[in-house]
């Protein structure tokens, strides 16, 4: 499926850049040629399951498409692993072979470079019945899990937003992340161009958007907060953004409004998706949360939603087939770990089940507190978490990153005043100002509520 998408792009727009990675430009013609050579190598070596420890987006896409072309299951590893970690991933997920871009010392695991894999010549490709791919969870808690997907199911959830081939998409995630895979599918479905920024830092991202005339950017709310912090109306006008997408975390209304103000011509959407259940819903009405109407999707819908005990559950036909080594799951309801409340016809996210803070028996959700604090003048980012306390079990604690030049004392007073609007138990009892917050996979890490 991925292979067919790539081939179709190569037929339609062979000389158009498929991937721009720094100064390297890979056209669709070159990418499909590379991918076909890799596919021949996979067939010749009879590789059916393997790990991918490549880091360049062009190489990863070529390998992923080739695997899909021959029905082999590729598993994209995170790009920043050391040799021990690569070995451990290969052991965990049972990969006898790992494709690498540099010399790796791995114990009893075969390594292959793309150059070693590529074969020229004529070879008929079978049309594989299944096009499996293993996508790892981000592992914000514990070790990553391998979710077994199929490219055809994944692609079904992606509808080409427009048929105009000149769209340019920023790769603000790694390709091994589910969200990165989604972006790749969108690029290929619309014959667009994928632009990889030199790093995820706001300045590098903004530089890449301006230099390569990026039109579509999808990132987490944390990512967007950092971007918005660097922009004013004037500098935003230089950026040709047409589509702004937020995903991976709850999208707060204040942030959506700010993006609308900075990019009045852009369409702004937030998506709800997950490695396990796939792409669920996209909302573009400028409001936070999901419309309650998503609860009324019928049995025939690819993805159904329901709320049980305040937690969102999903039943998906485009989600994973099952975890690694777990049997194929039935078309069953699955808990998301996302806690929600229905207010004014909207399903609002309030936090994760693992992030509930219990303050003397009162359950406090971190997201509304974070959202409130982030709306305070001078605040750039905030992370709310529970801290053990001898009197109440836990108290609400908050780490805050201020915008440059903000006075600490004034900011604290403003935060405390704003938090008076919260129930007493939800008010942060400990405010720490920190230079930065831990961000993993573009998502804000909250300390585990212990």
């Amino acid at each position, binding site marked *: 499926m991925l292979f067919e998408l790539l081939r179709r792009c190569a037929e339609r727009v062979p000389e158009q850049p498929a991937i721009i990675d720094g100064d390297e430009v890979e056209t669709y013609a070159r990418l499909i040629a590379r991918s076909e050579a890799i596919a021949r190598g996979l067939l010749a070596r009879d590789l059916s399951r393997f790990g991918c420890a490549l880091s360049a987006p062009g190489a990863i896409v070529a390998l992923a498409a080739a695997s899909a072309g021959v029905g082999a299951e590729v598993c994209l590893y995170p790009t920043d692993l050391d040799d021990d970690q690569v070995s451990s991933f290969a052991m965990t997920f049972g990969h006898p072979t790992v494709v690498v871009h540099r010399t790796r010392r791995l114990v009893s695991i075969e390594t292959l470079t793309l150059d070693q894999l590529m074969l020229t010549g004529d070879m008929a490709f079978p049309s594989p019945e299944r096009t499996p791919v293993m996508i790892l969870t981000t592992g914000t808690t514990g070790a990553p899990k391998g979710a077994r997907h199929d490219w055809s199911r994944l692609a079904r959830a992606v509808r080409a937003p427009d048929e105009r081939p000149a769209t340019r998409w920023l790769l603000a995630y790694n390709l091994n992340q589910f969200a990165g895979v989604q972006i790749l599918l969108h690029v290929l479905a619309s014959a667009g161009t994928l632009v990889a920024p030199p790093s995820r830092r706001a300045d590098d991202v903004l530089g890449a958007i301006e230099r390569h005339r990026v039109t579509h950017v999808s990132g987490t709310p944390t990512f967007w907060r950092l971007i918005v912090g660097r922009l004013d109306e004037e500098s935003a006008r230089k950026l040709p953004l047409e589509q702004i997408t937020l995903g991976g975390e709850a999208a707060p209304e204040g942030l959506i409004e700010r993006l609308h103000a900075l990019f009045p011509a852009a369409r702004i959407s937030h998506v709800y998706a997950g490695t396990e259940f796939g792409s669920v819903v996209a909302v573009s009405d400028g409001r936070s949360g999901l419309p309650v109407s998503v609860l009324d999707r019928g049995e025939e819908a690819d993805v159904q939603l329901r709320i049980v005990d305040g937690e969102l559950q999903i039943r998906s036909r485009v989600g994973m087939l099952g975890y690694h080594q777990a049997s194929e799951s039935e078309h069953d309801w699955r808990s998301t770990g996302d806690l929600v409340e229905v207010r004014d016809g909207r399903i609002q996210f309030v936090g994760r089940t693992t992030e509930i803070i219990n*303050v003397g028996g009162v359950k406090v959700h971190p997201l509304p507190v974070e959202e409130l604090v982030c709306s305070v003048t001078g605040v750039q980012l905030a992370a709310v978490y529970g801290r053990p306390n001898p009197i109440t079990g836990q108290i609400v604690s908050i780490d805050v990153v201020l915008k440059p030049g903000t006075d600490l004392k004034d900011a604290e007073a403003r935060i405390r005043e704003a938090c008076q609007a919260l129930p007493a138990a939800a008010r942060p009892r400990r405010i720490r100002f920190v230079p930065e917050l831990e961000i993993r996979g573009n998502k804000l890490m909250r300390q585990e509520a212990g």
Partner: protein
Amino acid sequence: MPDAKQTVDAESVIRDAIHALLERRGAAHLTVRPDSRITAELEFDSLELAELSQILEDELGRDPYSEGIIPDTVAELVGFYRG
């Protein structure tokens, strides 16, 4: 021998913390004396006590509440750091 400087520091940290919490509640008019009773007179609720214990732990490295001691008066609280 308890460190004299640490005791003085503890006393001022405790006084500042109590004053800050009273002020936030709009009760800055209450006089805080060594024999003021923390819950009975200064009317600290559990959330304020939780915050007080948090401040003491952050600023002084330990706090009586975590060790199962609930001081009744301000002087008893200061005394914990003399002990």
